[in-house]
Protein backbone atom coordinates (compact mmCIF):
# COMPACT_ATOMS: atom_id res chain seq x y z
CA UNK A 1 0.00 0.00 0.00
CA UNK A 2 2.73 2.45 1.01
CA UNK A 3 6.17 1.86 -0.38
CA UNK A 4 9.10 4.01 0.60
CA UNK A 5 12.19 3.18 -1.39
CA UNK A 6 15.65 4.63 -1.14
CA UNK A 7 14.37 7.84 0.39
CA UNK A 8 16.80 10.59 1.40
CA UNK A 9 15.54 13.79 3.00
CA UNK A 10 17.56 16.87 3.82
CA UNK A 11 17.05 19.88 6.05
CA UNK A 12 19.46 22.26 4.40
CA UNK A 13 22.75 20.39 4.63
CA UNK A 14 21.60 17.97 7.31
CA UNK A 15 20.73 14.59 5.89
CA UNK A 16 17.91 13.42 8.16
CA UNK A 17 16.99 10.33 6.13
CA UNK A 18 19.78 8.34 4.50
CA UNK A 19 18.14 5.86 2.18
CA UNK A 20 15.04 4.45 3.81
CA UNK A 21 13.16 1.40 2.52
CA UNK A 22 9.87 0.63 4.21
CA UNK A 23 6.75 -1.09 3.06
CA UNK A 24 3.36 -0.97 4.69
CA UNK A 25 0.79 -3.47 3.43
CA UNK A 26 -2.92 -2.98 3.44
CA UNK A 27 -4.53 -3.90 6.75
CA UNK A 28 -1.29 -3.91 8.74
CA UNK A 29 -0.12 -2.05 11.77
CA UNK A 30 3.52 -1.23 11.16
CA UNK A 31 5.55 0.31 13.96
CA UNK A 32 8.69 2.38 13.62
CA UNK A 33 10.84 2.85 16.69
CA UNK A 34 14.07 4.74 17.15
CA UNK A 35 15.90 7.10 19.45
CA UNK A 36 15.32 10.86 19.59
CA UNK A 37 16.48 12.54 16.43
CA UNK A 38 16.61 9.28 14.45
CA UNK A 39 14.38 10.78 11.75
CA UNK A 40 11.02 9.14 12.49
CA UNK A 41 8.94 12.30 12.32
CA UNK A 42 10.85 13.38 9.25
CA UNK A 43 9.87 10.14 7.58
CA UNK A 44 6.15 10.57 8.31
CA UNK A 45 6.29 14.15 7.06
CA UNK A 46 8.21 13.07 3.95
CA UNK A 47 5.38 10.66 3.14
CA UNK A 48 3.11 13.73 3.23
CA UNK A 49 5.44 15.75 1.01
CA UNK A 50 6.72 18.26 3.58
CA UNK A 51 9.73 18.17 3.39
CA UNK A 52 10.04 16.31 0.10
CA UNK A 53 12.44 13.45 -0.46
CA UNK A 54 15.46 14.56 -2.45
CA UNK A 55 16.18 11.02 -3.68
CA UNK A 56 14.10 7.88 -3.83
CA UNK A 57 10.39 7.44 -4.25
CA UNK A 58 7.28 7.22 -2.14
CA UNK A 59 4.33 5.40 -3.69
CA UNK A 60 0.85 5.05 -2.26
CA UNK A 61 -1.43 2.42 -3.77
CA UNK A 62 0.85 2.26 -6.77
CA UNK A 63 0.84 6.00 -7.35
CA UNK A 64 4.07 7.99 -7.12
CA UNK A 65 3.53 10.75 -4.56
CA UNK A 66 7.16 11.78 -4.06
CA UNK A 67 6.65 15.18 -5.70
CA UNK A 68 2.94 15.67 -5.05
CA UNK A 69 1.82 18.66 -2.98
CA UNK A 70 0.77 17.84 0.57
CA UNK A 71 -2.92 18.57 0.12
CA UNK A 72 -3.12 16.24 -2.87
CA UNK A 73 -1.43 13.44 -0.92
CA UNK A 74 -3.97 13.84 1.86
CA UNK A 75 -6.79 13.66 -0.67
CA UNK A 76 -5.56 10.25 -1.79
CA UNK A 77 -6.56 8.81 1.59
CA UNK A 78 -3.65 9.41 3.97
CA UNK A 79 -4.11 11.16 7.30
CA UNK A 80 -1.52 12.09 9.88
CA UNK A 81 -1.68 12.86 13.54
CA UNK A 82 1.64 14.70 13.56
CA UNK A 83 4.35 15.23 16.13
CA UNK A 84 3.26 17.83 18.67
CA UNK A 85 -0.41 17.17 17.83
CA UNK A 86 -0.79 20.48 16.04
CA UNK A 87 -4.30 21.17 17.25
CA UNK A 88 -5.57 24.47 15.82
CA UNK A 89 -5.37 26.43 19.07
CA UNK A 90 -7.98 29.11 18.36
CA UNK A 91 -10.53 26.71 16.95
CA UNK A 92 -13.05 24.78 18.97
CA UNK A 93 -12.91 21.01 19.25
CA UNK A 94 -15.79 20.88 16.80
CA UNK A 95 -13.99 23.07 14.29
CA UNK A 96 -10.83 21.01 14.64
CA UNK A 97 -12.86 17.93 13.77
CA UNK A 98 -14.36 19.77 10.81
CA UNK A 99 -10.82 20.53 9.67
CA UNK A 100 -10.14 16.81 9.75
CA UNK A 101 -13.10 16.27 7.43
CA UNK A 102 -11.96 18.76 4.78
CA UNK A 103 -11.32 16.02 2.23
CA UNK A 104 -14.27 13.85 3.29
CA UNK A 105 -17.72 13.56 1.78
CA UNK A 106 -19.86 16.02 3.80
CA UNK A 107 -22.66 13.45 3.80
CA UNK A 108 -20.59 11.30 6.19
CA UNK A 109 -19.88 14.07 8.64
CA UNK A 110 -22.55 13.39 11.24
CA UNK A 111 -21.86 9.68 11.27
CA UNK A 112 -18.09 10.21 11.56
CA UNK A 113 -18.57 12.75 14.31
CA UNK A 114 -20.68 10.26 16.20
CA UNK A 115 -17.95 7.65 15.86
CA UNK A 116 -15.27 10.10 17.01
CA UNK A 117 -17.30 10.93 20.08
CA UNK A 118 -17.93 7.29 20.86
CA UNK A 119 -14.17 6.59 20.68
CA UNK A 120 -13.35 9.64 22.81
CA UNK A 121 -16.42 10.64 24.83
CA UNK A 122 -14.49 13.43 26.55
CA UNK A 123 -14.35 15.29 23.23
CA UNK A 124 -18.16 15.40 23.10
CA UNK A 125 -18.22 17.27 26.41
CA UNK A 126 -15.55 19.65 25.21
CA UNK A 127 -16.90 20.29 21.74
CA UNK A 128 -17.14 24.07 22.13
CA UNK A 129 -13.87 24.45 24.02
CA UNK A 130 -10.95 26.00 22.18
CA UNK A 131 -8.27 23.53 21.15
CA UNK A 132 -5.46 25.50 22.76
CA UNK A 133 -7.05 25.18 26.18
CA UNK A 134 -7.39 21.38 26.14
CA UNK A 135 -5.12 19.28 28.31
CA UNK A 136 -2.29 17.44 26.61
CA UNK A 137 -4.13 14.14 26.72
CA UNK A 138 -7.31 15.66 25.36
CA UNK A 139 -5.31 17.25 22.57
CA UNK A 140 -3.80 13.89 21.71
CA UNK A 141 -7.24 12.31 21.50
CA UNK A 142 -8.47 15.19 19.39
CA UNK A 143 -5.49 14.82 17.05
CA UNK A 144 -6.31 11.15 16.47
CA UNK A 145 -10.04 11.83 16.15
CA UNK A 146 -9.34 14.62 13.69
CA UNK A 147 -7.15 12.37 11.56
CA UNK A 148 -9.93 9.76 11.46
CA UNK A 149 -12.52 12.27 10.27
CA UNK A 150 -11.21 12.07 6.71
CA UNK A 151 -11.89 8.30 6.60
CA UNK A 152 -8.26 7.62 5.69
CA UNK A 153 -7.13 4.28 4.34
CA UNK A 154 -3.67 4.89 5.79
CA UNK A 155 -3.27 6.51 9.19
CA UNK A 156 0.13 7.92 10.21
CA UNK A 157 0.51 8.34 13.96
CA UNK A 158 3.50 10.16 15.43
CA UNK A 159 3.97 9.24 19.08
CA UNK A 160 0.29 9.11 20.05
CA UNK A 161 1.17 8.04 23.60
CA UNK A 162 3.54 10.93 24.32
CA UNK A 163 2.91 12.60 27.63
CA UNK A 164 -0.09 10.50 28.57
CA UNK A 165 -0.86 8.79 31.86
CA UNK A 166 -0.25 5.00 31.78
CA UNK A 167 -3.98 4.27 31.90
CA UNK A 168 -4.61 6.54 28.95
CA UNK A 169 -1.66 5.09 27.06
CA UNK A 170 -3.23 1.67 27.33
CA UNK A 171 -6.53 3.04 26.12
CA UNK A 172 -4.91 4.76 23.14
CA UNK A 173 -3.23 1.54 22.02
CA UNK A 174 -6.53 -0.31 22.38
CA UNK A 175 -8.16 2.28 20.19
CA UNK A 176 -5.43 2.01 17.57
CA UNK A 177 -6.00 -1.71 17.49
CA UNK A 178 -9.74 -1.22 17.22
CA UNK A 179 -9.35 1.28 14.37
CA UNK A 180 -7.22 -1.24 12.55
CA UNK A 181 -9.31 -4.34 13.16
CA UNK A 182 -12.82 -2.96 12.95
CA UNK A 183 -12.44 -0.24 10.37
CA UNK A 184 -9.70 -1.89 8.36
CA UNK A 185 -7.52 1.21 8.47
CA UNK A 186 -3.85 0.57 7.84
CA UNK A 187 -1.69 2.14 10.55
CA UNK A 188 1.91 3.32 10.38
CA UNK A 189 2.88 4.07 13.94
CA UNK A 190 5.93 5.93 15.26
CA UNK A 191 6.52 5.37 18.95
CA UNK A 192 8.94 5.78 21.83
CA UNK A 193 6.79 3.50 23.88
CA UNK A 194 8.40 0.46 22.27
CA UNK A 195 6.80 -2.18 24.44
CA UNK A 196 3.18 -1.34 23.63
CA UNK A 197 3.91 -0.38 20.06
CA UNK A 198 5.76 -3.60 19.24
CA UNK A 199 3.13 -5.75 20.90
CA UNK A 200 0.49 -4.13 18.76
CA UNK A 201 2.44 -4.24 15.50
CA UNK A 202 2.23 -6.88 12.80
CA UNK A 203 5.62 -5.76 11.61
CA UNK A 204 8.15 -3.26 12.85
CA UNK A 205 11.25 -1.30 11.85
CA UNK A 206 14.04 0.15 13.92
CA UNK A 207 15.61 3.40 12.76
CA UNK A 208 19.01 4.71 13.82
CA UNK A 209 20.18 8.13 12.59
CA UNK A 210 18.31 8.13 9.34
CA UNK A 211 18.75 4.45 8.45
CA UNK A 212 16.70 1.30 9.02
CA UNK A 213 18.85 -1.11 10.99
CA UNK A 214 16.42 -3.87 11.85
CA UNK A 215 13.08 -5.17 10.71
CA UNK A 216 10.83 -8.10 11.55
CA UNK A 217 7.55 -9.00 13.14
CA UNK A 218 6.56 -7.10 16.25
CA UNK A 219 7.10 -10.20 18.36
CA UNK A 220 10.56 -10.82 16.86
CA UNK A 221 11.75 -7.33 17.65
CA UNK A 222 10.26 -7.47 21.11
CA UNK A 223 12.40 -10.54 21.76
CA UNK A 224 15.52 -9.15 20.09
CA UNK A 225 18.30 -8.57 22.64
CA UNK A 226 19.57 -5.43 20.93
CA UNK A 227 16.11 -3.92 20.81
CA UNK A 228 15.54 -4.85 24.43
CA UNK A 229 18.80 -3.26 25.46
CA UNK A 230 18.28 -0.08 23.47
CA UNK A 231 14.57 0.59 23.73
CA UNK A 232 13.07 -1.54 26.46
CA UNK A 233 15.48 -1.88 29.34
CA UNK A 234 14.18 -0.40 32.51
CA UNK A 235 10.78 -0.17 30.86
CA UNK A 236 7.96 -2.62 30.80
CA UNK A 237 10.09 -5.48 29.43
Amino acid at each position, binding site marked *: MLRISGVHTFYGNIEALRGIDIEVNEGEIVTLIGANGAGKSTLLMTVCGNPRATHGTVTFEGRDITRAPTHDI*IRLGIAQSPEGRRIFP*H*MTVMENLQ*MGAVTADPAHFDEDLERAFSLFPILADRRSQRGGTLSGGEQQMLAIA*RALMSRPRLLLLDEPSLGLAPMVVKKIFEIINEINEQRGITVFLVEQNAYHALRLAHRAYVMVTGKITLTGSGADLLADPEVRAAYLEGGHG
Partner: protein
Amino acid sequence: MEYFVQQLINGLTLGAVYGLIAIGYTMVYGIIGMINFAHGEIFMIGAFHALIIALGLGITTGTWIPVALVAALVGTMLLTPIYGWALERVAYRPLRGSPRLATLITAIGMSIYLPNQVQLLQGARIKTLPPVLQGGFEIMEGGGFVVTLSYLQILIMVLTVTLMVAFTLIIEKTALGRAQRACEQDRTMAALSGINVDRTIALTFVMGATLASVAGMIFLLRYGVIDFFIGFLVGIKAFTAAVLGGIGSLPGAMLGGFLIGLIEAFWSGYFTVEYKDVAAFSILVLVLIFRPTGLLGKPDIEKV
Protein backbone atom coordinates in the same frame (compact mmCIF):
# COMPACT_ATOMS: atom_id res chain seq x y z
CA MET B 1 -25.23 69.17 19.62
CA GLU B 2 -26.44 69.34 16.01
CA TYR B 3 -22.93 70.03 14.84
CA PHE B 4 -21.73 67.06 16.86
CA VAL B 5 -24.27 64.73 15.26
CA GLN B 6 -23.29 65.94 11.83
CA GLN B 7 -19.62 65.21 12.50
CA LEU B 8 -20.61 61.82 13.86
CA ILE B 9 -22.40 60.96 10.62
CA ASN B 10 -19.52 62.26 8.53
CA GLY B 11 -17.01 60.37 10.63
CA LEU B 12 -18.84 57.10 10.40
CA THR B 13 -19.15 57.24 6.62
CA LEU B 14 -15.51 58.18 6.30
CA GLY B 15 -14.65 55.36 8.71
CA ALA B 16 -16.51 52.93 6.48
CA VAL B 17 -13.90 53.51 3.78
CA TYR B 18 -11.02 52.95 6.19
CA GLY B 19 -12.69 49.94 7.77
CA LEU B 20 -13.28 48.18 4.46
CA ILE B 21 -9.65 48.66 3.46
CA ALA B 22 -8.35 47.78 6.91
CA ILE B 23 -9.99 44.36 6.68
CA GLY B 24 -7.73 43.58 3.72
CA TYR B 25 -4.62 44.56 5.67
CA THR B 26 -5.64 42.56 8.68
CA MET B 27 -6.66 39.41 6.77
CA VAL B 28 -3.44 39.29 4.80
CA TYR B 29 -1.39 39.98 7.91
CA GLY B 30 -3.27 37.23 9.72
CA ILE B 31 -2.67 34.60 7.09
CA ILE B 32 0.90 35.28 5.95
CA GLY B 33 2.20 37.70 8.57
CA MET B 34 3.10 40.45 6.13
CA ILE B 35 1.94 44.02 5.73
CA ASN B 36 0.70 44.31 2.17
CA PHE B 37 1.73 47.91 1.63
CA ALA B 38 0.32 47.82 -1.90
CA HIS B 39 -3.20 47.29 -0.56
CA GLY B 40 -3.97 51.02 -0.63
CA GLU B 41 -3.19 50.97 -4.34
CA ILE B 42 -5.73 48.22 -4.86
CA PHE B 43 -8.26 50.58 -3.31
CA MET B 44 -7.18 53.28 -5.78
CA ILE B 45 -7.54 50.86 -8.69
CA GLY B 46 -11.00 49.96 -7.39
CA ALA B 47 -11.97 53.63 -7.53
CA PHE B 48 -10.68 53.85 -11.10
CA HIS B 49 -12.62 50.78 -12.20
CA ALA B 50 -15.79 52.24 -10.74
CA LEU B 51 -15.14 55.58 -12.44
CA ILE B 52 -14.37 54.04 -15.82
CA ILE B 53 -17.53 51.95 -15.73
CA ALA B 54 -19.72 54.82 -14.53
CA LEU B 55 -18.40 57.23 -17.15
CA GLY B 56 -18.31 54.52 -19.79
CA LEU B 57 -22.00 53.91 -19.38
CA GLY B 58 -22.47 57.63 -19.81
CA ILE B 59 -25.48 57.80 -17.55
CA THR B 60 -24.90 60.23 -14.79
CA THR B 61 -28.37 61.70 -14.64
CA GLY B 62 -31.96 60.57 -14.57
CA THR B 63 -33.59 57.37 -13.52
CA TRP B 64 -30.77 55.24 -14.90
CA ILE B 65 -28.44 56.34 -12.13
CA PRO B 66 -29.16 53.36 -9.89
CA VAL B 67 -28.32 51.04 -12.78
CA ALA B 68 -25.05 52.85 -13.35
CA LEU B 69 -24.25 52.66 -9.66
CA VAL B 70 -24.92 48.94 -9.47
CA ALA B 71 -22.95 48.31 -12.66
CA ALA B 72 -19.99 50.28 -11.33
CA LEU B 73 -20.15 48.51 -8.00
CA VAL B 74 -20.41 45.01 -9.42
CA GLY B 75 -17.87 45.80 -12.11
CA THR B 76 -15.21 47.04 -9.74
CA MET B 77 -15.89 44.16 -7.34
CA LEU B 78 -15.21 41.76 -10.20
CA LEU B 79 -12.27 43.51 -11.84
CA THR B 80 -10.27 44.81 -8.88
CA PRO B 81 -9.75 41.42 -7.22
CA ILE B 82 -7.87 40.34 -10.34
CA TYR B 83 -5.22 42.85 -9.30
CA GLY B 84 -5.24 41.52 -5.76
CA TRP B 85 -4.82 38.00 -7.06
CA ALA B 86 -2.08 38.96 -9.51
CA LEU B 87 -0.24 40.92 -6.82
CA GLU B 88 -0.03 37.86 -4.64
CA ARG B 89 0.77 35.52 -7.50
CA VAL B 90 3.47 37.65 -9.12
CA ALA B 91 5.04 39.55 -6.26
CA TYR B 92 4.53 37.67 -3.01
CA ARG B 93 4.15 33.95 -3.68
CA PRO B 94 7.63 33.53 -5.18
CA LEU B 95 9.01 35.02 -1.98
CA ARG B 96 7.16 32.71 0.38
CA GLY B 97 9.60 31.46 2.98
CA SER B 98 12.15 34.18 2.32
CA PRO B 99 13.09 36.74 4.98
CA ARG B 100 10.44 39.24 6.00
CA LEU B 101 12.50 42.14 4.79
CA ALA B 102 12.43 40.82 1.21
CA THR B 103 8.64 40.64 1.21
CA LEU B 104 8.36 44.04 2.83
CA ILE B 105 10.57 45.67 0.22
CA THR B 106 8.60 43.93 -2.54
CA ALA B 107 5.37 45.25 -1.07
CA ILE B 108 6.74 48.77 -1.02
CA GLY B 109 7.96 48.25 -4.58
CA MET B 110 4.50 47.20 -5.70
CA SER B 111 2.99 50.21 -3.95
CA ILE B 112 5.23 52.39 -6.10
CA TYR B 113 4.68 50.40 -9.28
CA LEU B 114 0.87 50.27 -9.25
CA PRO B 115 0.15 54.02 -9.06
CA ASN B 116 2.71 54.56 -11.78
CA GLN B 117 1.00 52.01 -13.97
CA VAL B 118 -2.32 53.76 -13.44
CA GLN B 119 -0.71 57.12 -14.13
CA LEU B 120 0.65 55.80 -17.41
CA LEU B 121 -2.65 54.31 -18.49
CA GLN B 122 -5.01 56.99 -17.21
CA GLY B 123 -2.89 60.11 -17.12
CA ALA B 124 -1.79 62.16 -14.18
CA ARG B 125 -4.69 64.58 -14.07
CA ILE B 126 -7.44 64.31 -11.53
CA LYS B 127 -10.59 62.55 -12.69
CA THR B 128 -14.02 63.75 -11.73
CA LEU B 129 -17.38 62.13 -11.54
CA PRO B 130 -20.38 64.46 -11.54
CA PRO B 131 -22.41 64.06 -8.37
CA VAL B 132 -24.78 61.23 -9.10
CA LEU B 133 -26.54 60.80 -5.82
CA GLN B 134 -27.72 64.03 -4.28
CA GLY B 135 -30.14 65.01 -1.57
CA GLY B 136 -30.93 63.45 1.74
CA PHE B 137 -32.95 63.77 4.90
CA GLU B 138 -32.79 66.67 7.29
CA ILE B 139 -32.88 64.83 10.53
CA MET B 140 -32.29 67.60 13.07
CA GLU B 141 -32.29 71.32 13.28
CA GLY B 142 -31.16 73.71 15.95
CA GLY B 143 -29.42 77.05 16.25
CA GLY B 144 -29.64 77.58 12.55
CA PHE B 145 -27.72 74.37 11.85
CA VAL B 146 -29.36 71.60 9.87
CA VAL B 147 -28.10 68.06 10.25
CA THR B 148 -28.41 66.16 7.01
CA LEU B 149 -28.13 62.51 6.39
CA SER B 150 -27.58 62.22 2.66
CA TYR B 151 -28.82 59.34 0.54
CA LEU B 152 -25.22 58.69 -0.28
CA GLN B 153 -24.31 58.35 3.38
CA ILE B 154 -27.18 55.93 3.88
CA LEU B 155 -26.02 53.94 0.88
CA ILE B 156 -22.47 53.88 2.23
CA MET B 157 -23.53 52.66 5.64
CA VAL B 158 -25.88 49.99 4.31
CA LEU B 159 -23.27 48.74 1.88
CA THR B 160 -20.50 48.71 4.45
CA VAL B 161 -22.46 47.05 7.20
CA THR B 162 -23.80 44.42 4.79
CA LEU B 163 -20.30 43.61 3.55
CA MET B 164 -18.82 43.51 7.03
CA VAL B 165 -21.54 41.18 8.27
CA ALA B 166 -21.20 38.98 5.20
CA PHE B 167 -17.43 38.72 5.52
CA THR B 168 -17.60 38.03 9.23
CA LEU B 169 -20.01 35.20 8.51
CA ILE B 170 -17.75 33.83 5.80
CA ILE B 171 -14.77 33.79 8.14
CA GLU B 172 -16.66 32.42 11.13
CA LYS B 173 -19.05 29.94 9.58
CA THR B 174 -17.97 28.66 6.18
CA ALA B 175 -15.45 26.03 5.15
CA LEU B 176 -13.48 28.71 3.30
CA GLY B 177 -13.27 30.85 6.44
CA ARG B 178 -12.22 27.85 8.47
CA ALA B 179 -9.51 27.08 5.93
CA GLN B 180 -8.28 30.66 6.21
CA ARG B 181 -8.18 30.52 9.97
CA ALA B 182 -6.41 27.16 9.79
CA CYS B 183 -3.71 28.60 7.53
CA GLU B 184 -3.40 31.48 9.94
CA GLN B 185 -2.90 29.25 12.97
CA ASP B 186 -0.77 26.45 11.54
CA ARG B 187 -0.03 26.34 7.84
CA THR B 188 1.67 22.95 7.99
CA MET B 189 -1.30 21.36 9.71
CA ALA B 190 -3.70 23.07 7.33
CA ALA B 191 -1.90 21.38 4.44
CA LEU B 192 -1.93 18.08 6.35
CA SER B 193 -5.70 18.46 6.59
CA GLY B 194 -5.95 18.65 2.80
CA ILE B 195 -6.19 22.43 2.48
CA ASN B 196 -4.58 23.97 -0.59
CA VAL B 197 -2.64 26.62 1.29
CA ASP B 198 -1.52 28.63 -1.73
CA ARG B 199 -5.04 28.86 -3.04
CA THR B 200 -6.40 29.87 0.35
CA ILE B 201 -3.83 32.67 0.59
CA ALA B 202 -4.69 33.83 -2.94
CA LEU B 203 -8.37 33.87 -2.02
CA THR B 204 -7.57 36.01 0.98
CA PHE B 205 -5.99 38.60 -1.30
CA VAL B 206 -9.02 38.40 -3.56
CA MET B 207 -11.40 38.96 -0.66
CA GLY B 208 -9.38 41.87 0.66
CA ALA B 209 -9.29 43.43 -2.80
CA THR B 210 -13.05 43.03 -3.17
CA LEU B 211 -13.65 45.05 -0.03
CA ALA B 212 -11.04 47.61 -1.05
CA SER B 213 -12.75 48.02 -4.41
CA VAL B 214 -16.02 48.87 -2.67
CA ALA B 215 -14.13 51.37 -0.54
CA GLY B 216 -12.75 52.84 -3.76
CA MET B 217 -16.24 53.20 -5.18
CA ILE B 218 -17.46 54.83 -1.97
CA PHE B 219 -14.54 57.25 -2.03
CA LEU B 220 -15.34 58.13 -5.62
CA LEU B 221 -18.99 58.83 -4.85
CA ARG B 222 -18.20 60.77 -1.71
CA TYR B 223 -15.53 63.07 -3.11
CA GLY B 224 -16.23 62.89 -6.84
CA VAL B 225 -12.52 63.35 -7.53
CA ILE B 226 -9.79 60.76 -7.77
CA ASP B 227 -6.28 60.49 -9.11
CA PHE B 228 -3.61 57.82 -9.25
CA PHE B 229 -2.16 58.95 -5.94
CA ILE B 230 -5.15 58.55 -3.58
CA GLY B 231 -4.09 55.05 -2.52
CA PHE B 232 -1.14 56.24 -0.50
CA LEU B 233 -2.68 58.38 2.23
CA VAL B 234 -5.96 56.48 2.47
CA GLY B 235 -4.00 53.23 2.52
CA ILE B 236 -1.79 54.39 5.36
CA LYS B 237 -4.79 55.53 7.35
CA ALA B 238 -6.55 52.23 6.81
CA PHE B 239 -3.37 50.50 7.91
CA THR B 240 -3.40 52.71 11.00
CA ALA B 241 -6.99 51.61 11.56
CA ALA B 242 -5.97 47.96 11.33
CA VAL B 243 -3.17 48.46 13.86
CA LEU B 244 -5.43 50.49 16.14
CA GLY B 245 -8.03 47.72 16.13
CA GLY B 246 -5.40 45.03 16.55
CA ILE B 247 -3.78 43.72 13.38
CA GLY B 248 -5.00 40.24 12.58
CA SER B 249 -8.40 40.87 14.14
CA LEU B 250 -11.36 41.26 11.81
CA PRO B 251 -13.69 43.10 14.23
CA GLY B 252 -10.64 45.13 15.24
CA ALA B 253 -10.15 46.35 11.68
CA MET B 254 -13.77 47.47 11.45
CA LEU B 255 -13.68 49.19 14.82
CA GLY B 256 -10.33 50.80 14.02
CA GLY B 257 -11.68 52.05 10.70
CA PHE B 258 -14.67 53.73 12.28
CA LEU B 259 -12.53 55.20 15.06
CA ILE B 260 -10.05 56.72 12.63
CA GLY B 261 -12.93 58.12 10.59
CA LEU B 262 -14.47 59.65 13.70
CA ILE B 263 -11.19 61.08 14.96
CA GLU B 264 -10.59 62.66 11.61
CA ALA B 265 -14.11 64.10 11.35
CA PHE B 266 -14.17 65.51 14.86
CA TRP B 267 -10.68 66.89 14.59
CA SER B 268 -11.55 68.67 11.35
CA GLY B 269 -14.86 69.80 12.80
CA TYR B 270 -13.60 71.23 16.05
CA PHE B 271 -9.93 72.02 15.47
CA THR B 272 -8.24 72.39 12.12
CA VAL B 273 -8.68 70.51 8.91
CA GLU B 274 -4.98 70.88 8.14
CA TYR B 275 -3.89 68.71 11.01
CA LYS B 276 -6.44 65.92 10.71
CA ASP B 277 -3.85 63.47 9.44
CA VAL B 278 -1.59 64.30 12.33
CA ALA B 279 -4.44 63.47 14.70
CA ALA B 280 -5.00 60.07 13.14
CA PHE B 281 -1.32 59.17 13.20
CA SER B 282 -0.79 60.47 16.74
CA ILE B 283 -3.41 57.99 17.84
CA LEU B 284 -1.40 55.27 16.10
CA VAL B 285 1.73 56.27 17.99
CA LEU B 286 -0.12 56.29 21.30
CA VAL B 287 -1.63 52.87 20.65
CA LEU B 288 1.72 51.42 19.69
CA ILE B 289 3.24 52.75 22.90
CA PHE B 290 0.52 51.79 25.34
CA ARG B 291 -1.23 48.86 23.71
CA PRO B 292 0.89 47.39 20.92
CA THR B 293 -1.59 44.59 20.25
CA GLY B 294 -4.30 47.12 19.42
CA LEU B 295 -7.74 47.43 20.93
CA LEU B 296 -9.08 43.98 20.05
CA GLY B 297 -5.87 42.14 19.20
CA LYS B 298 -4.78 39.33 21.44
CA PRO B 299 -1.17 38.76 22.34
CA ASP B 300 0.11 35.61 20.71
CA ILE B 301 0.80 33.56 23.79
CA GLU B 302 -0.91 30.41 22.65
CA LYS B 303 0.72 29.99 19.30
CA VAL B 304 2.20 26.53 18.86
